């Protein structure tokens, strides 16, 4: 716990100082992508790592958040702060609804049904042309006013700090969640559902709570993404986002707080680095997943934790 807190604070200092080193626009852009990915991974980890159910439909909430922000911004001209909060609330409500239906199931049933929900939303976004503009998506989401006069680099730096602030909020929430009775209850459910019930933990209720928090985080990430890219299309519900979320959490280490912070950094950098290999990189990604599952089942942080325990015993 102390290690985690120190690590997170250290990482925060590094992240704050990072843009001051005079990087190019591209490097800052990668930084923004990392911030976006950490938000997503942190939320997703609450479900996969703590509740211990494997959701394949987390993009549903990413997409709902992104569309909420896009619609509020393009049709009502709402500012970014309002949109992010609204996206979080709407995604949380959707999470409450979808979670209430899906969390009655477990194992493979839960996996497939969450996937179904994301897929239904993608089809709706594709076909409900009058609201979502169909496959064309919603373009021209306005950037905040104060950015109008700034250079492209400065705009990216601003987005970087907005993203960092949101990441801090998300990780702080996750931290408080994990180290409260809620987090411990959820971990008990993950480890042994029957024991949890026998000591008075209601699995459905606590799982649902974690699910709603995770949905809200994905909604925030979606709104941030919508404003940064200033375009939202049905592909935000698509499976590629889900795959990168899975790889990030898995590689970093599910069920740890640091995993979803480290995982996205590695994955986003790797993704940018592998750009040279063009199409081959996705094949490599598939192999990376296979190798991680086989040889690093607990992820990097799980590996580190096991090593630390070994040292402590010596």
């Amino acid at each position: 716990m102390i290690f985690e807190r120190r690590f997170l604070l250290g990482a925060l200092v590094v992240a704050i100082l990072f843009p001051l080193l005079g990087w190019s626009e591209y490097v800052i852009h990668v930084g923004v992508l990392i911030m976006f990915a950490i938000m997503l991974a942190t939320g997703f980890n609450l479900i996969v790592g703590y509740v211990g159910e494997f959701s394949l439909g987390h993009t549903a909430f990413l997409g709902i958040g992104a569309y909420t922000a896009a619609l509020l911004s393009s049709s009502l001209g709402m500012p970014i702060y309002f949109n992010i909060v609204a996206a979080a609330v709407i995604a949380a409500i959707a999470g409450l609804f979808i979670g209430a239906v899906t969390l009655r199931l477990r194992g493979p049933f839960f996996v497939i049904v969450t996937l179904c929900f994301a897929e239904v939303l993608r089809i709706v976004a594709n076909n409900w042309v009058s609201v979502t503009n169909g496959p064309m998506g919603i373009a021209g989401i306005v950037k905040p006013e104060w950015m109008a006069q700034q250079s492209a680099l400065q705009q990216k730096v601003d987005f970087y700090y907005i993203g960092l602030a949101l990441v801090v909020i998300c990780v702080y929430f996750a931290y408080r969640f994990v180290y409260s009775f809620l987090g411990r209850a959820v971990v008990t459910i993950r480890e042994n559902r029957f024991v949890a019930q026998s000591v008075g933990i209601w699995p459905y209720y606590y799982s649902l709570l974690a699910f709603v928090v995770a949905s809200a985080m994905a909604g925030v990430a979606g709104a941030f993404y919508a404003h940064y890219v200033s375009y939202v299309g049905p592909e935000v519900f698509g499976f590629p986002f889900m795959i990168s979320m899975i790889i990030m959490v898995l590689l970093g280490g599910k069920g740890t707080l640091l995993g979803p912070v480290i995982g996205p950094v590695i994955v986003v950098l790797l993704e940018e680095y592998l750009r040279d290999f063009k199409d081959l990189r996705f094949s490599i990604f598939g192999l990376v997943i296979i190798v991680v599952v086989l040889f690093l089942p607990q992820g990097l942080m799980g590996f580190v934790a096991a090593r630390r325990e070994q040292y402590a015993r010596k």
Partner: protein
Amino acid sequence: MDFLLQLLANGLVNGTFYALSALGLTLIFGLMRVVNFAHGELYMVGGLIGWALTELLGANFFLALLIVVIATGAAGYLIDRWLIERVRNQGPETGILLTIGISIFLTNTALLIVGTVPHKVLSPFANKPLFLGPVVVTQSRLSIVAICAVLMIAVHLLIKHTTLGRAMRATVQDAMAASLVGIRTERIHGFTFALGTALASAAGSLLGSIYVTQPTIGGLVSLKAFVVVILGGLGSFAGAIIGGLLLGVTEALWGGYFATGYVDAIGFALVIVMLLVRPYGLFSVKSERA
């Protein structure tokens, strides 16, 4: 009335195809407790090999089908023994992740090799329409339906009435007891996965002669197969067939009388409704609740 009959016929034909493409998935879950997310990609591989053999090498359709079944069956056996075996008994999600990794690898490697152009398997069946009373069905579709039926019966007999099938069922019921009576459970797992893989790719090359196959089709096939097996009950053989027919007919009716844009959403809507009414499908093998 004729329109309704035609829609029903279309639905039943499509439903049979859905059932066939979901069979491998339900088999692997029912007999191994592995949710195979690479199912659609195995289907795609079968379709592409079928295309390469018939179109590029000019092989006979049935010979190509036989080669596909043997080649992918062998590949499936190796995938199980080399990869899935290592994560057995580690809970469902490691298996899911592993097969997702395999599916990403297969899709993108196939994309690298054959590109994005859709391909079609050459079949000996003519695309001639047949008139059965008021209903029109093409000859090729009807022939494929017949082959589907034969395949399903063959697999059913294999599982229920052969030593290998009995060993497969014993292994999933109690692996420990099975190995005590001399069943080599590891090999049996390998054979089960090989059977599922061969079925998926056989479906791919059969249906590849009617629809087109392209590397990115796997995701869609997997999704439809999931819908079918959830409707019928994961792991149930009869359930996959009923689920497939149900999905085919519902889609056909919806597409005929209402909007065509949302046809793909119907299956998912059915699944969600099913979930509220009967959480583990029509013919669930085992209901788990806590």
